[in-house]
């Protein structure tokens, strides 16, 4: 109880002390907040993207079977579906048709696909929001694709893909299977790849193993591997940004050290007075520690809040280029907020921890000032 009361007195004095030196402390607060803002933005953004990606990927098939010829991805014959036969754990299997189309006029890569669940006539197309924006078209307008034999095929846009799925569907173009085969020249009896649904996640590996035994020229791509790779890449990208920001962090640490060491004559005098009237070195140390804590916590909260607003309400305008990738068809989307203890702890170690460490020695030096000096 005594301890709490004492801290309350010290905090009271600290607050009034901070307010008496608004200029210096405001400057420090600003820089500190900026650092927290930068780091928190990166973490929140990447984390949210990663979560988003994993949620979306939940709908992708557990196993994608691709055929390799001389180490390169090749078309897969439809009779492989029978060759796969009945594998325990496989709930369904089907062939997929999809590929990339480059449109030089907008310098964009489309992903063109024949969807399973959509009924399209040979002249209808469904496109993603990014494609629509890039071409400036909407429902009812016309969309063309150029085939390998030089012919141009026109489609009427039936609908645009849902905004909610923009993150993965932004560059998607969906046409009927027949239209796809005509444009690409892929004959009946061949697919781009085969997908399998496996109910029990523990059995996915086993199924993959058996597939490679049965069909030596295929490679199975597991959804869990994709998720793992995404995870890895996002972590890695985050890490790179942090490493780049290390310079900023060092500058901040030096700045903090400097501010803490550079006591004005007035501040030195105040500490001398405190010690002369009965404050012990430990009390002064604690008071200075609270000063640091108040500034740190304020900066942390303000910076984090600003980062939150930045990432989740303005879609992280500052970071898009680095973290999303190189595509010209940027999806527009709202991320779902995700916060967790890991983030906060990491952020704490990159901001408050260095600040405290940088200021320990200057604070100590200030606190052990000889009160004797003040009598002279």
């Amino acid at each position, binding site marked *: 109880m005594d301890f709490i009361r004492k801290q309350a007195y010290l905090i009271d*004095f600290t607050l*009034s002390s901070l307010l008496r030196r608004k200029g210096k402390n405001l400057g420090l607060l600003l820089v500190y907040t900026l650092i927290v803002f930068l780091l928190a933005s990166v973490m929140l953004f990447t984390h949210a993207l990663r979560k988003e990606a994993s949620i979306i990927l939940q709908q992708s098939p557990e196993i994608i079977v691709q055929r390799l010829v001389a180490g390169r991805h090749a078309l897969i014959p439809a009779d492989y579906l029978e060759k796969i036969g009945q594998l325990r754990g496989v709930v369904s299997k089907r062939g997929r048709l999809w590929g990339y189309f480059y449109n030089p006029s907008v310098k964009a890569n489309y992903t063109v696909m024949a969807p399973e669940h959509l009924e399209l006539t040979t002249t209808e197309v469904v496109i993603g929001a990014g494609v629509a924006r890039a071409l400036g078209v909407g429902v009812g307008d016309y969309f063309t694709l150029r085939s390998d034999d030089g012919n141009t095929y026109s489609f009427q846009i039936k609908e645009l893909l849902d905004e909610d799925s923009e993150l993965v569907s932004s560059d998607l173009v969906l046409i009927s299977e027949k239209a796809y085969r005509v444009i690409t020249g892929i004959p009946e009896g061949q697919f781009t790849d085969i997908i399998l649904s496996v109910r029990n996640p523990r059995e996915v590996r086993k199924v993959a193993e058996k597939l490679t035994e049965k069909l030596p020229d295929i490679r199975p791509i597991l959804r869990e591997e994709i998720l793992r790779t995404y995870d890895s890449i996002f972590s890695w990208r985050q890490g790179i940004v942090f490493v780049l920001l290390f310079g900023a962090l060092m500058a901040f640490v030096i700045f903090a050290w400097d501010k803490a060491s550079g006591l004005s004559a007035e501040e030195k005098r105040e500490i001398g007075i405190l010690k002369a009237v*009965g404050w012990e070195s430990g*009390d002064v140390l604690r008071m200075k520690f609270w000063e640091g804590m108040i500034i740190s916590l304020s900066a942390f909260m303000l910076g984090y809040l600003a980062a939150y607003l930045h990432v989740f309400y303005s879609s992280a305008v500052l970071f898009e280029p680095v973290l999303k990738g190189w595509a010209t068809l940027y999806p527009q989307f709202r991320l779902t907020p995700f916060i967790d203890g890991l983030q906060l702890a990491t952020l704490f170690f990159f901001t408050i921890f260095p600040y405290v460490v940088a200021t320990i020695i200057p604070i100590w030096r200030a606190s052990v000032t000889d*009160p*004797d000096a003040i*009598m002279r």
Partner: protein
Amino acid sequence: MLITLTDINKVFNQGKHNEFQAIRDISLQIEAGKVTCIKGASGSGKTTLLSIIGCLSRPTSGRVTLDKEVLSGLPERFLTDIRRHTFGFVFQKFNLIQGLSVLENIMLPAYPLSLNHKALKTSAQQLIVHFGLDRVMHNPVEWLSGGESQRVAICRALINKPQILIADEPTANLDTRLSQEFMELIDELRKTGKTILITSHDPVVFDSPVVDRIVEMRDGQILES
């Protein structure tokens, strides 16, 4: 409270090229309940002596005893604790904290003692009223006159109810009238049983009838006791 100093020496910057002996072999007894004035020119070591008596610094050698307790060997932390409860300081330049009010300045020495806030405030207010500062209680100390500032400094020195009051050149920044008023305050305090130690080279102080004993210092030594 009887303060005894035995063979006190104080050396600054020991072992370095600018080594300086401020106090040489001083033995002294400060009587309880009396007003003692230490007289001497500047540089005579009286401020150093004061800070040793008041436990603000430690002697290089020698012993300081308070009643029977030896203080000189104590580490800073405990010295501070004893100092808080035993000594009240009034400094030459008052040394109030700018930006804080009169009330806050007075309460300041008691903060580390984690006393009940209400009780502390009441004690402070009692002192404020006693010393005629109630009208300026919430004013920032920058607005006060010299005399008012000094009274605030005295209140601050008294907040922890110390037995001994130490004042270093208290009248240096005051005119004659205020200096005399100051001595009247000292007289009042002496009558309440406090022990008072003043350093000064102001005749208003050392010639005052309030002073019971004069100790003269020169070059770090006592001339007469």
